[in-house]
């Protein structure tokens, strides 16, 4: 059974502890949402899992073996990462950009194989971006670019996919589309770990949520349990309205708990 395990993960950036004793497991086929207020350590957690920054203490293991013991290539094949501020510098075609996701699979000094081309086409198709294949990436709209970058990460065809706020800056339709692609990928057997700010998306699409606060694990479990009114008040400092419409759950922030207290206090 393939599994990504995190134990007692502690990590400091610029001398400040950003993650403290984080631990959780991720299995194939799961869509795990990492949520928490700004500065909680969500992005840092994903970057550490992707191997972009070294951790100071604790373990990240893949099938029981520490990821640090894996060759960089092997790790790259097993865990794909979609960063938050990926901005392609060169005007390469979308097809070539998505093809970058195949780099960990290609032996040195060899061109694209048929499997590589098939994976690129499948990834573009999954993200509804096949018609963009020939377009230069610098001439895409925000929504188109997000889809193509997501396709790049999908093209790795990894066991685990890490996506850092893939819905940031997208209009509602595109955000829903991205969440559907991730859910679909999870259903196909990939372990997907995604950081989110939108609580409705977290509630609706994720199998499990991890709530971070000041670099510690504040709560973990089913979306309903993690997004309890107590947690929302304690961690986010908000009161929210949860409900269901057309069979789909939603969660709308109503007010900050500070405002509520102030409102109560001002009443005689």
């Amino acid at each position, binding site marked *: 059974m393939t599994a990504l395990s995190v134990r007692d993960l502690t990590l400091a950036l610029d001398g400040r502890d950003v993650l403290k004793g984080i631990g959780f497991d991720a299995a194939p086929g799961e869509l795990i949402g990492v949520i928490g207020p700004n500065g909680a350590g969500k992005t840092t957690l994903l970057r550490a899992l*992707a191997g972009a920054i070294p951790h100071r203490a604790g373990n990240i293991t893949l099938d029981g073996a520490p990821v640090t013991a894996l060759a960089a290539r092997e790790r790259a094949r097993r865990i794909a990462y979609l960063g938050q501020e990926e901005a392609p510098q060169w005007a390469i075609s979308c097809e070539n950009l998505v093809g970058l996701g195949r780099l960990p699979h290609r032996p040195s000094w060899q061109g694209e194989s048929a499997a590589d081309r098939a994976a690129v086409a499948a990834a573009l198709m999954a993200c509804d971006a096949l018609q963009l294949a020939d377009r230069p990436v610098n001439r895409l709209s925000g929504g188109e670019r997000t889809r193509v970058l997501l396709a790049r990460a999908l093209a790795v065809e990894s066991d685990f996919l890490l996506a850092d706020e893939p819905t940031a800056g997208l209009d509602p339709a595109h955000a829903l589309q991205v969440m559907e692609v991730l859910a679909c990928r999870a259903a196909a057997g990939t372990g997907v770990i995604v950081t989110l700010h939108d609580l409705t998306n977290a509630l609706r699409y994720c199998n499990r949520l991890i709530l971070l606060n000041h670099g510690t694990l504040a709560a973990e479990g089913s979306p309903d349990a993690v997004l309890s009114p107590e947690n929302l008040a304690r961690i986010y400092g908000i009161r929210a309205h949860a409900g269901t419409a057309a069979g789909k759950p939603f969660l709308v922030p109503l007010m900050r708990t500070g405002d509520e207290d102030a409102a109560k206090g001002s009443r005689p």
Partner: protein
Amino acid sequence: MSAALQGAGRRRIGRHTRQALLLPALALVLVLVFVLSLGIGPAGIGFIEALGALFGGAGEATRLIVLELRLPRAILGVLVGATLGLAGAALQGYLRNPLAEPGLIGVSSSAALGAVLTLYTGIAAAFTLALPLGGVIGAVIGVVLLQVLAGRGGGTLTLILAGIAVTSMAGALTALILNLAPSPFAALEIVFWLMGSLADRSFAHVWLALPFMVPGWALLATLARPLDALTLGEDTAHSLGFPVTGVRARLIAGTALSVGAATAVAGTIGFLGLVVPHLLRPFVGHRAGALLAPSALGGAILMVLADIAVRLPFPGNELKLGVLTALVGGPFFLWLIVAYRRRLP
């Protein structure tokens, strides 16, 4: 709909053939300009005669001129041009910045400072490898200083400012050496050397530079995939299995070895590393890794062509190679700045 798809397919096939033909086409052009270069010079030996001399079918004097003067000059043109084109493409790819170039970021001027130091102190006369070694050491110090000043993933502006700082520091020290030169003739010799030229070079220069250039090229050639991966930034490159620290070490060593040696034998020749990758980028679909080999060939072509141009009859002294590339490259750089101005921070 199907017509549109077929159109896209045709465009794609056209693009692939164009990219596949690029390297053979550049190689062919390089052979042509190389032969042309053998046929140019004050001795009035045409290139057919020169070709004959190359294969042992001409008079003693002709053979001497072609084999001992023109051939090493043409070969050095290829070596230096390929180095500058390749290093320019690698630096642009690594820094994700179309304005990077060995000359603009201070590598050439620090290599020149190192070489000038060996000339001034007389070490260059004491043992043969001193001049290229001086150039390489100067280049290494320049690149390391640039890294410290610009930091990791620094923006366009930081990089150019750091390059200006390194260039002006190296320039100040070079000026100091000129100032302290024992005689005006020694100073003039250094100035002419700094302008960059391939005139009066022999095979000794080729053998001096090659041992440094070849490992430098080899290091830069291994960067093709990491540079592609870096298209999406350092974190993504890392996640694709290319840790950026190793990439940077290879880039620094490769640039310093090859550009240091090139500067040591040919002086400072600017702008070539800026112009060549820029001209060829559209032909490789803007892929950073695929740009390396064509840039080396394109750099060699442009350098040999420029060296032919400076040998054409010209009133007064022979134009120095570095002066010509600066005269052509300067306006090109201005145009690039205008074109990228909207994207600069």
